[in-house]
């Protein structure tokens, strides 16, 4: 009755050699292609370094003004602009300016990358149910797989540093971008699409003149979620060498520095709120035409 109480698992030796074979296979792959892959990702590295340099080396008053100006352009809301202003001043006053700037640079690059990859995939997905059926489970894996797990192969391939961190964050943060692009396009009114067809619009014209503009509010919601998830991933990414607010948090965990952890955590919350409010208000402004309903 032993098998009844104890799950009859695979033979220990067989299991060990299976794991070993996979590990070795991957290691061999890394040895022979690691450099090539690293080379492929070097444009990303340059992009990251440029963003990082811009954020940390530009004098702080200019950065604050710049962020306030962007917030104003996107929201036209003085309260949100004021909120950004105060949050940034507080962050600077508590000596977290440089780390915050590095994190913002990282998030910026992640978001740009997620948009650049996510929207085309979302569009492909919306066009074919088969593609949707293939991609959906992949997205599920990306979202539910504990992020530490896919840090391992990324680190094995690319080592420790900014780019592997970036990749880990993008993998974690891109699913809502893809899903909401797909959803937004699928939700476009069939009547409007039929009208576009009736006027002889080509596939491309339909996409750019009808589907994407009408899906834009949903896509904006996707961008918002992607930013939030990227921020949540920043602490974990700092384990593999991403600089920014995550590192002091890690240090605080290791040494039980309660206040250090708290301050940096709050700084993350602060910029999360800035990003969230600004992108949401912008999304709302985009759909102004939907609000004024004829009475």
């Amino acid at each position, binding site marked *: 009755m032993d098998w009844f109480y104890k799950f009859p698992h695979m033979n220990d030796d067989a299991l060990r050699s299976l794991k070993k074979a996979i590990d070795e296979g991957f290691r061999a792959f890394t040895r022979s292609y690691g450099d090539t892959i690293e080379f492929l990702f070097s444009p990303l590295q340059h992009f990251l370094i440029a963003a990082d340099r811009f954020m940390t080396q530009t004098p702080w008053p200019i950065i604050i003004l710049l962020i306030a100006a962007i917030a104003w352009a996107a929201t036209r809301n003085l309260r949100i602009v004021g909120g950004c202003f105060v949050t940034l001043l507080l962050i600077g006053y508590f000596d977290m300016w440089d780390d915050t700037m590095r994190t913002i640079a990282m998030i910026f690059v992640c978001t740009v990358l997620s948009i650049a990859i996510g929207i085309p995939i979302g569009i492909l997905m919306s066009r074919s149910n088969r593609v949707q059926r293939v991609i959906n489970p992949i997205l599920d894996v990306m979202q539910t797989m504990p992020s530490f797990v896919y840090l391992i192969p990324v680190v094995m391939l690319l080592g420790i540093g900014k780019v592997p961190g970036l990749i880990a964050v993008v993998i974690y943060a891109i699913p809502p971008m893809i899903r909401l692009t797909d959803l937004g396009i699928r939700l476009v009114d069939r009547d409007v699409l039929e009208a576009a*067809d*009736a006027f002889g619009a080509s596939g491309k014209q339909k996409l750019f003149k009808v589907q994407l*503009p*009408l899906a834009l509010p949903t896509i904006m919601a996707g961008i918002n979620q992607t930013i939030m998830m990227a921020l949540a991933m920043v602490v974990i990414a700092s384990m593999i060498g991403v600089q920014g607010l995550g590192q002091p948090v890690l240090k605080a965990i290791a040494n039980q520095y309660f206040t250090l952890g708290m301050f940096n955590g709050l700084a993350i919350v602060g910029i999360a709120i800035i990003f969230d409010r600004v992108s949401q208000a912008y999304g709302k402004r985009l759909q102004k*035409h*939907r609000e004024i309903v004829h009475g």
Partner: protein
Amino acid sequence: MAEHAFGGIKIRELYKIFGPNAAAHIESVKNGLTKTELNEKHGHVLGLRDINIEIPSGRIQVIMGLSGSGKSTLIRHINRLIDPTSGEVLVDGVDVVKMSETDLREFRRQQTAMVFQKFALLPHRNVLDNTVFGLEVQGLPQSVRADTAMRWLEQVGLKGFEQKYPNQLSGGMQQRVGLARALANDAPVLLMDEAYSALDPLIRSDMQTILLDLQKEIKKTIVFITHDLDEALRLGDQIAILRDGEVIQQGTSQDIVLRPADDYVANFVKDVNRGRVVHVEAVMQPLAGHAAPSGPTIAAGTTIEEAVRLLVSGPEKDVTVVDPTGKPLGVVTLRQLAGAIVSAHGTTSPSAAAPAMAG
């Protein structure tokens, strides 16, 4: 637009079966399988059966029928938003069914324009940008588009609203945008699928007037779908009545009202205000010989109601009906005219039906 005279629309032996395996059932349908049998035995829906309609250039063809009778399906075959299972749709002599993807796109851009029941405007574009949509798709330069669009917006009475968004407008105004968008294309064929059904009666009547006034200048070939008989009679040069995907009667308003093909059509026309539809020829006493008209005359094609109005204000006398060349066709008396109004199947008095035709 077209250098040569537009050749009109001819629909020949058009069949449409909805379902995954439509082609397999077309033969049995042609051999008389009914809509119900097709649905019960094979799970396919018969959309259209053996439709034959000829629409001369510059005319308004109305298609009528109850909900689900296949009106939308039929009109969507003209610009092939729906592919037929078998049959021909000739627009200006070219079979739409055989067109390649690119030809079809070009055909839709140049030859047809469509107005939709639910307007189908682009909510993220203002009125002007909605109106230019067809021209934009054609790839015309910006300045041409804006000029053309502004001209049509003015024609439909929307000057000053160019910058509004669709949901800032009432239904009637939105549909005028839809109409302007279609007219801006300057295509010879205008397809209107229950374009006015979502509008309330007064606005609807306004829109009918706009269309009829415009049609005097633009002379498009218009296919107009409605399930409102008054609308059909007012707009249609020709009317086709559909039931369960089949045409059960086609003809002019006179044919439909005076000689309904069966009970279904008779039921449709029983409430109509005949005084406003039926022409004097239908009630006159035809002239045997070729006597010259003596006394007052009235043109053929005048409605009974109009004739009564003329007669009561004139002398108490027989009136001669004459054709456009002045040739006398028959005589008619006030008594005959009045009789024709009340004998309208004895169902409705003219005054009760009158509000539907107001304006």
